[in-house]
């Protein structure tokens, strides 16, 4: 290129609007004629718990000694109506993930890991497997719109029931399990032909709206003789009203799932563009419970993008009673492990980015129904890793709670928090760091 040409042509400049990802997606759509389907939750940058900080104790607050003084972590869920509420040793549970989306060994590992540290795991679309029940001391049985695998025997075997209204990755959307994963066993449990693309309904077949839900919950209580708690799970969309309506419908506990929460498979456009980030959904949910006089009586379990004990502590400080993890639990089992990089490369991806969980080719043996791949996951070893991870998260949350002078992680409160950005201050309804200003608080 001559010196003159260099001045005639401006340097190549890529569009901020049509960035590499947008262009690649247009090309992919043009080539295939189908929207992008993938697993996991929102990948875009969202306001999240990293934007919050704890203040810690000082002259006006008295800290607890990290290695000696007790900081309790136990949670009781479902004492509102259930004769046998759930007693968790830690405020971190395992979110609902189906056998079908996950392999048998992965479900077993989740049960082993959760049980080792005294917490619960949750079924998913497609019903309860004996392996899962056998290895989970506390198992929450989901009642989903599809009712795949739903049966009263399993309902009575459960330690709690979760009526799933929605999911953070796709509030208003049903599930998908593509043909690659509809093996004979999965198809048999769901009463579907082998190998078809399976759609899970987005609406429950036999109820619509909160008045019906109240009767549905009563039916489940009657069937289980009022013994076990009944949760209601909603995706974060209109949390104030959804939580109020769930309380009105008679829920013992509510699971609130933000848009960073994962899914086995759905449209990328849905995952990235529908719902609320987890952090901003908690304050209105807690406000609804407080307005009804039900905060701490109906427990709030928050999920969606929880990664470490700091995230746990921040959720609790904002008013949640517990959290649930899904994606993080799979990573603890071995999902997206860099040791498998060569195999991820063969799949056209890289460790840390693999999200084609619906294709069933997971080299880690977790999001697959291929028996050879599934056999790679040792449920004992993977369960141990999950238990380790859950213990670390709990220790981290305790560390922060003690630093804030709390003898129970539930004693953390919004007053312990500040926000680093104006948007996170407005969303989390805590002051902007260094000020006493909560944007929007006087509106």
């Amino acid at each position, binding site marked *: 290129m001559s010196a003159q040409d260099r001045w005639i042509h401006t340097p190549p400049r890529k569009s901020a609007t049509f960035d590499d990802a947008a262009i690649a997606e247009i090309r992919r759509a043009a080539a295939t004629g*189908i929207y992008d389907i993938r697993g996991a939750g929102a990948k875009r940058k969202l306001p999240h718990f990293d934007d919050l900080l704890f203040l810690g104790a000082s002259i006006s607050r008295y800290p607890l000694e990290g290695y000696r003084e007790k900081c309790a972590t136990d949670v009781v869920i479902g004492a509102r109506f259930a004769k046998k509420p759930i007693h968790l040793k830690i405020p971190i549970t395992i979110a609902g993930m189906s056998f079908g989306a996950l392999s048998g060994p992965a479900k077993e590992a989740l049960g082993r890991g959760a049980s080792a540290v005294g917490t619960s795991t949750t079924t998913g679309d497609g019903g309860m497997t004996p392996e899962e029940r056998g290895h989970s001391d506390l198992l929450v049985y989901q009642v989903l719109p*599809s009712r795949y695998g*739903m049966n009263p025997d399993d309902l009575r075997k459960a330690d709690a029931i979760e009526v799933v209204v929605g999911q953070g990755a796709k509030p208003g959307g049903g599930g998908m399990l593509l*043909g690659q994963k509809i093996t004979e066993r999965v198809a048999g449990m769901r009463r579907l032909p082998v190998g078809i693309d399976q759609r899970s*309904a987005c609406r429950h*077949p*036999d*109820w619509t709206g909160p008045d019906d839900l109240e009767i549905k919950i009563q039916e489940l209580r009657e069937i289980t003789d009022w013994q076990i708690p009944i949760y209601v799970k909603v995706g974060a969309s209109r949390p104030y009203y959804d939580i109020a309506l769930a309380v009105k419908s008679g829920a013992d506990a509510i699971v609130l799932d933000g848009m960073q929460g994962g899914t086995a498979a759905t449209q990328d456009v849905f995952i990235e563009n529908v719902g609320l980030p987890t952090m901003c959904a908690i304050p209105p949910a807690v406000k609804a419970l407080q307005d009804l006089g039900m905060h701490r009586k109906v427990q709030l379990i928050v999920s969606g993008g929880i990664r470490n004990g700091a995230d746990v502590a921040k959720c609790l400080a904002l008013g949640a009673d517990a959290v649930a993890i899904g994606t993080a639990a799979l990573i603890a089992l071995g999902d997206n492990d860099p040791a498998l990089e060569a195999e991820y490369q063969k799949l056209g991806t890289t460790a840390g980015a693999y999200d084609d969980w619906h294709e069933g080719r997971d080299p880690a043996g977790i999001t697959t129904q291929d028996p050879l791949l599934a056999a790679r996951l040792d449920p004992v070893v993977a369960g141990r890793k999950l238990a380790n991870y859950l213990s670390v998260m709990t220790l981290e949350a305790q560390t922060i709670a003690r630093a804030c002078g709390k003898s129970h992680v539930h004693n953390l409160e919004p007053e312990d928090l500040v926000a680093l950005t104006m948007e996170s201050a407005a969303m989390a309804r805590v002051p902007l760091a260094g000020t006493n200003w909560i944007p929007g608080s006087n509106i």
Partner: protein
Amino acid sequence: MPSVDLASSPLRELNSALHALTDNTNATHWTVSNPRGQHNIAVGLDFPVEIEIDGHVGYYCAGMNKQARVTVRGNAGQGIAENMMSGRVHVTGDASQAAGASGNGGLLVIDGNASARCGISMKGIDIVVKGSVGHLSAFMAQAGKLVVLGDAGEALGDSIYEAQLFVRGTVASLGADCVEKPLKDEHKVELKKLLDDAGVEGVSPDEFKRYGSARKLYHFHIDNVGSY
């Protein structure tokens, strides 16, 4: 024969007593009076007991039933026999929406009409409606047979999987991927048995048309996008 008056006895006591039945009981035939439209009567049963309910019932009567034979002498509210696994539920009047929803087995007989979404998500249950059914009946129906002696409303069998639908009267419209299929001899044999089991007399299987899945939506294809 135990007799329970729901005007004076709480529903919880009835359901609790029915759940407590064991093999050595003689209480195998129960009557229930004054249901007064209460919801969740006789739900979650798992015992071969006969229950006669004298009057109208609310939502989810006989929900998730196993083994029991439940007769409702009146009308039934939403979700009668929802998710039934086995046994038999008989409604002598009309049934509201979502009758037999997601049922896995057993037989549901409705002497009158059933409202919208009859047999929605059905997974193996057989349903015989002697009157007509409302719109979106057998929506996403996976397995089992829905027999309608009257007419079917709009979008019958929308997004149907492998359930079989038999309609004697008119069908307002078929839903996505639901088509009329030939009524072969083997279907007539199955249909005759179901009609007999439901106590239908004087009706020939030849009077019905059969509907089921075209199976075009089993795998996503862009050329079918208009159906989604």
